[in-house]
């Protein structure tokens, strides 16, 4: 909660509202169940630069600790109190060495500016989310939530520290409002994972001003947002949402988005979405789609999409010339039998570089096109399943094709799960033809469940291609689950 530097005093309204909500819960027959999960992942892998030389030999140990709990009541109208928290620690080891000289980088040493990697951290501890919520106060009309929380809606992922209130207005509408501080890079327990692109930030305390000047010092950002959700007899579901994020340097984001889903008959669903970036006076995302659900099973869909990337409005990127990408996509999903599913997809992409006549170059660049298709077949039996997937996309930007066969099987009376993957890839880079390649990837893995409370997985991967030769990767995962 302290990560994005909100003061304890400024958090009081949200905390008070939540405390009031919990107090307002009926005390009778109140019980609280919780579950603790821990996951430890050790991985070792190699990264080679575009020129093929071994650059990094990495090891990473990642630990997550999650707590999730909920109140339990025999009264279906009783409010529910929920707790969700997750702590994560990434510990990086390994080295970046020049194979020619055996000299390794000292990425953390700020006095060696030529080697310093400003955004690299050996150990990073962060809190992806931690919140407490009460659902169904005032006879189901009010939901409250406080803490570090994620909002997922047409404006995308957004992580912030603060409070959110939802007012449910009968069967047809609900209103949502939230406010607080965006979770941003450079603060303790925070990695800024969902910050918009554009600016590099870190905690520069103790840094020489002349070092890594492109990396700005951390800066907190306030956020307020609101949403209106409308429903009509399970046929129409619409959400209108608005959000504004601002810092001392100005407004970093202000956007309005609307998304609507409409059921037409029993088997056709139509949906549309638009995102409007207010200070840019630009529609950055627009999509329209139709989905069919035939009575005999399966699904088909057609979707048109226009996307224009957005950036932090306090960065220069937001005022640069950015053209949209248009995409048309069609897909079909067919259950061939109870054990076999088939999916097919095709798409075309148009990079609309001709939307505005070039004032600088004096020539229109045209609109490069790419087109592609994909197919997948999944076979599921009682103790094994296999999936074959293939996709190919090509056009003005080169060619990318891949096929992979993955298999999973339970053996030894479900005491051991085996995984295998074979993949082929072909890439032709139109911009840098020397980096075109064909690749082969092989993976073997095994998972052993240890009762209902633990699971151990290991996997080995070998990626082979003409640019980097062999690249090895090993992963081990231990998952634990306890009920306190």
């Amino acid at each position, binding site marked *: 909660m302290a990560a994005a530097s909100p003061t304890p005093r400024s958090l009081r309204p949200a905390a008070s509202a939540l405390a009031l909500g919990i107090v307002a819960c009926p005390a009778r027959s109140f019980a609280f169940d919780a579950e603790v999960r821990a996951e430890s992942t050790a991985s070792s892998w190699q990264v080679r630069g575009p020129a093929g030389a071994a650059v990094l030999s990495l090891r990473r140990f990642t630990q997550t600790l999650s707590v999730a709990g909920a109140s339990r009541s025999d009264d279906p109208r009783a409010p529910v109190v929920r707790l969700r928290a997750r702590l994560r620690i990434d510990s990086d080891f390994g080295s970046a060495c020049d194979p020619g000289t055996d000299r390794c980088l000292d990425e953390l040493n700020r006095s060696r500016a030529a080697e310093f990697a400003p955004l690299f951290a050996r150990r990073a501890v962060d809190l992806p989310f931690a919140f407490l919520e009460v659902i169904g106060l005032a006879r189901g009309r009010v939901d409250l939530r406080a803490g570090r929380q994620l*909002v*997922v809606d047409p404006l995308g992922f957004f992580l912030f520290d603060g409070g959110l209130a939802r007012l449910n207005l009968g069967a047809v509408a609900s209103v949502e409002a939230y406010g607080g501080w965006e979770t941003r890079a450079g603060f303790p327990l925070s990695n800024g994972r969902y910050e918009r692109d554009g600016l590099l930030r870190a905690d520069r305390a103790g840094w020489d001003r002349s070092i890594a000047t492109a990396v700005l010092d951390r800066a907190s950002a306030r956020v307020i947002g609101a949403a209106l959700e409308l429903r009509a007899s399970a046929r129409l579901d619409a959400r209108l949402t608005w959000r504004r994020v601002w810092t001392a340097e100005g407004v970093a984001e202000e956007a309005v988005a609307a998304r609507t889903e409409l059921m037409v008959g029993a088997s056709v669903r139509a949906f549309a979405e638009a995102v409007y970036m207010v200070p840019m006076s630009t529609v950055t995302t627009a999509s329209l789609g139709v989905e069919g659900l035939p009575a005999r099973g399966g699904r088909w869909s057609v979707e048109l999409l226009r996307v224009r990337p957005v950036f932090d409005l306090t960065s220069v990127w937001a005022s640069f010339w950015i053209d949209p990408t248009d995409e048309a996509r069609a897909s079909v999903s067919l259950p061939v039998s109870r054990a076999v599913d088939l999916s097919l997809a095709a798409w075309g992409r148009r990079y609309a570089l001709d939307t505005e006549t070039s004032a600088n170059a004096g020539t229109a660049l045209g609109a490069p096109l790419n087109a592609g298709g994909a197919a997948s077949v999944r076979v599921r039996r009682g103790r094994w399943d296999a999936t074959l997937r293939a996709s190919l996309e090509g056009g003005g930007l080169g060619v990318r094709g891949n096929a992979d066969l993955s298999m999973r099987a339970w053996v030894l009376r479900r005491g051991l799960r085996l995984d295998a993957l074979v993949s082929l890839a072909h890439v032709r880079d139109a911009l840098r033809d020397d980096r075109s390649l064909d690749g082969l990837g092989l993976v073997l893995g095994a998972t052993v469940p240890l009762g209902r409370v633990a699971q151990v997985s290991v996997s080995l991967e070998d990626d082979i291609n003409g640019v980097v030769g062999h690249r090895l990767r090993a992963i081990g995962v231990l998952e634990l689950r306890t009920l306190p």
Partner: protein
Amino acid sequence: MTLSARSIRALLGFVLTLAATAGALVAQPRPAAPPPVTTGEGPSHLIYPTQRLPLRFQHARHLAMPGVTCASCHPAATTSARVEDSLLPTEASCAPCHAIDRAHPMSASTAPNPLGGCDLCHEGWRPESPLRVARVVIPTANLRFSHARHAAQGVACERCHANVRGVGIATRLELPTMASCVTCHRPGGAPDRCAVCHLTEPDGRLRTRFGDGWMNPPRWMNGLHHDADFWFTHRASAAQDGSRCAVCHTEGECAACHDGRVRDRRTHPNDYVTMHAVDARMNSDRCGSCHRASNFCVACHQRAGVAASSSTLSRALGRFHPPAAVWTNAPVTLRHHGAEARRAMRTCTSCHSEQDCVTCHATLGRGGGGFSPHPPSFLARCGALMRASERPCALCHDDLDAVRARCR
């Protein structure tokens, strides 16, 4: 692709191991098919597991008799508060009309109904094993349900068991589907939280796994049905309202993929580290659903020697972009950095800071080259952008007052 003999041996060993594993798997005896998962049509086998009902009965005939109601045979149906309660009529419920003479199970009784033999109700009963009847198996439904609460609200039996008046033996097909439940359990009506009826895990999420099968939202529910393609199409559902996903999934499940530190092979199956540059150029927006360029990409690019701000040691590996004659200098073609930036600027931010651009794109007064990066229509909307933040203007323009005047 040139491989050494050692590499080929390693590869061969790997393939042989893979083949042996696959062979061992294929040699396994073929197991039974898994229980079907719900498809939205008819009651789910996960919610109502398969029953064995070796019984004879005519609901239609009984309910047509005067004075016979559901409660006549199922008296506990109005008081049962738990789904585990058995509401099947016992012999005592039948006996008032179908008296049974256990000494002579094949003989007709003297009761008003002359058909009182065991095989009247117990299908497959044989006189040579008079004390043996086939077992009735009705597994507990994987739900929470109180008949008493519904009865107290005045909900008639046939509101949920709609076809029972016209059938013989009542089976799973006469149990209510979710589509019928939500006619009352809807916003503004009866409690509509999923956990009111569905079983939950200790953390409050719905319990979705039963045996070998996974519970799946029905096909009629707002595109939430998880079919084979859902992995790639779930954005459309999640973007509508992420709280719908949270009914069954924790935020940790989102984070495991969308913020994973271990590459998920379902999304990136191949040697993706080597291939990702081409994919990012083709559709950088899709990358953005999981990776922020200024956060996730830059740190790795800096360390791997790809970024402009990488250490000189790792950057010595070679130039990343095409030659300057094509990439930087005029004329502007589709291979010029200007065109690439207009088309996929997110890829620029995965390596470059804004200072790299300002060096050339700043005005002459700021020491740059004066190459304007703005689109032709920029003047019409720069005022709103400037009101949002003047910081980016100040990076390139030396005379902000003049800029304010033009953008007013």
